[in-house]
């Protein structure tokens, strides 16, 4: 890779600590740590869409939020355009936030129900430094039309919109900051098929128009396949495989990825092949299994090594990485 990545994560960890009460400590309960993100290395390149998949609770949202400095990482460093942004404060932080924005999954809770579209967007514009009300007005109208909303809805409140339209407002809000990088945290999961298609298309168009870079979180693999340039697969706080989209879908290497891909129900007859059905459920990040976290469900388990040694994410020459003892062997 010669191009410098736009975002680079180095051994990022985010642990949530559940404090125990004094007496419980006395009674022998230990401090519980949820290892939501547990050592992720990742590079996101300018202009690409990096898809992020994984089961619920594996730390996708946490990762996205950590990148955006919505909370501080427990360990590791985050670089944005080569600058470490871990400890940004005040003005620098605000500056960074113009560059990096987020779109949320839930179109209901991500918009302040007591604010009209105008208020929601002008908040963003003011943060960007656009204070003049006339300019704001013009900008807001522009934003609305670019996400496909009618300008006359400018003074409407979120509850007056459908789910898809709300998602568009959320997108407009993120765009208002003129960001270069957007974390899209399952932006279409809550939407209907037909609306989902509309939003995906919109996100794609905007990406091209504004030269955006996305970290696109989703659990629907067909969507990921459709939109991403590269895909990272997470399992229990770690990235287990990362590869170019076609590569990943045609030739998944990590057993977990294989299972995921085989589980995609397809309309097309020819793609319906044998399923790999994984046993059991995702272990909790409170008490992750030792070694390779996937070994409890793995159908390719090698034995001892999987239970004791954590496999590292190894990249091949193509920049595709996988973390599995089996694949290495």
């Amino acid at each position, binding site marked *: 890779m010669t191009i410098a990545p736009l975002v680079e994560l180095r051994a990022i960890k985010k642990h949530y600590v559940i404090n125990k*009460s004094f*007496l*419980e400590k006395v009674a022998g*309960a230990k401090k519980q740590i949820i290892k939501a993100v547990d050592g992720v290395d990742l590079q996101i390149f300018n202009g690409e869409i990096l898809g992020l998949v994984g089961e619920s609770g594996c730390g996708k949202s946490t990762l996205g939020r950590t990148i955006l400095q919505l909370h501080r990482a427990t360990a590791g460093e985050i670089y944005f355009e080569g600058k470490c942004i871990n400890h940004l404060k005040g003005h620098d932080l605000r500056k960074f936030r113009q560059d990096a924005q987020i779109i949320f999954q839930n179109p209901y809770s991500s918009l302040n129900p007591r604010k009209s579209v105008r208020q929601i967007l002008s908040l963003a514009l003011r943060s960007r430094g656009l204070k003049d009300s006339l300019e704001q007005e013009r900008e807001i109208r522009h934003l609305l039309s670019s996400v496909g909303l009618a300008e006359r809805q400018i003074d409407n409140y979120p509850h007056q919109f459908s789910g898809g339209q709300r998602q568009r407002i959320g997108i407009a809000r993120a765009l208002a900051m003129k960001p270069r990088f957007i974390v899209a945290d399952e932006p279409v999961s809550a939407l209907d098929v037909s609306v989902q298609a509309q939003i995906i298309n919109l996100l794609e168009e905007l990406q091209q128009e504004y030269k955006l870079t996305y970290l696109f979180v989703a659990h629907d693999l067909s969507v990921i396949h459709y939109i991403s340039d590269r895909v990272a697969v997470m399992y229990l706080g770690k990235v287990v495989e990362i590869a170019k989209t076609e590569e990943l879908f045609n030739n998944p290497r990590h057993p977990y990825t294989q299972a995921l891909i085989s589980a995609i129900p397809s309309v097309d007859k020819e793609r319906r092949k044998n399923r790999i059905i994984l046993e059991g459920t995702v272990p909790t990040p409170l008490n992750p299994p030792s070694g390779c976290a996937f070994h409890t469900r793995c159908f390719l388990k090698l034995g001892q090594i999987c239970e004791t040694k954590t496999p590292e994410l190894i990249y091949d020459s193509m920049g595709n990485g996988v973390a599995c003892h089996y694949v290495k062997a």
Partner: protein
Amino acid sequence: MRAVKIVERVLATIPIMIGVAILVFLFMRFTPGDPVDLMMGKDGNVSAQEVATLRAQFNLDEPIYVQLFDYLHKASQGDLGLSFKKNRPVIELVKEALPATVELSLVAVVISLFIAIPIGVYSAVKQNSLIDRASMGISFLGVSMPAFWLGIVLILIFSVKLGISPAQGRIDYGVGLDKVTGFYLLDSILTGNFQAFKSTLSHLLLPAITLGATLAAIVTRVVRSSMLEVLRQDYIVMARAKGMSEFKVVVKHALRNALIPTVTVVGLEIGVLLGGNMIVETVFGWPGLGRIAVEAIFNRDYPLVQGVVMFYAIVFVMANLIVDILYTYINPKISI
């Protein structure tokens, strides 16, 4: 872990009690008005020397912090001092009055719940029916009436006009109740004294209704709205889809869930109920803590006020503790 949490919850009440003790103490000491003056009555000749003797007797001549430490020290050993006015140990006075108050409050709570829960459930099931509207209307009245007014009106109707209910007191003299626990209802059951039970109950009803009216009104509303909420849930449809009868769906599946918010509200309202005691006990001449508290405050009977308030706080904290523990049983998702 549940046991640990319960222990912890119990221990957590200790600092609250200490805080309450200090707060009441300071509160009373910064009161204008000399307790000794009140102690001596309004008329008659009181010499300055007599006053001084009394002040010394009750430690009132010491600096406040000395009094406070003295008080806390003794309180921790269960000695709450002597009542200024009654010259008797506060603990004894409180012990005498506590069962009356607790019995009244408990019966009030029980009556309100027994009335409120079925009505609330029925109103929710028959939403917008005549009965629903009527019961909501009545429950509004319940929260809109000052307790003392309701009490007087009840006395006028049931004691004076109809003569079916005594206007005051806890029990008729002469029914020969042996006091075992101080809770007359319980005692009369324990000793199998039916007459005493009847007498106690007839004395209890009016004050308990007066005291419980607000709670009943609030609980009705809470039960109704949480039932409405619960009845919309998927698991209700699921229960129906199992082929369960509507009655069982409502009583078993819905009510149990609707009780969860109800328990919380009851916990919060217990404070209000205990506060209402003071009024109701005064109106009905009920020999409980509330009446003592009011008298003691007016008499500047510091030790008694402190003692009574402490016990109020204990009763309140205990009631909440019980509610909290109950909550964990009703709501399996929470372990305190």
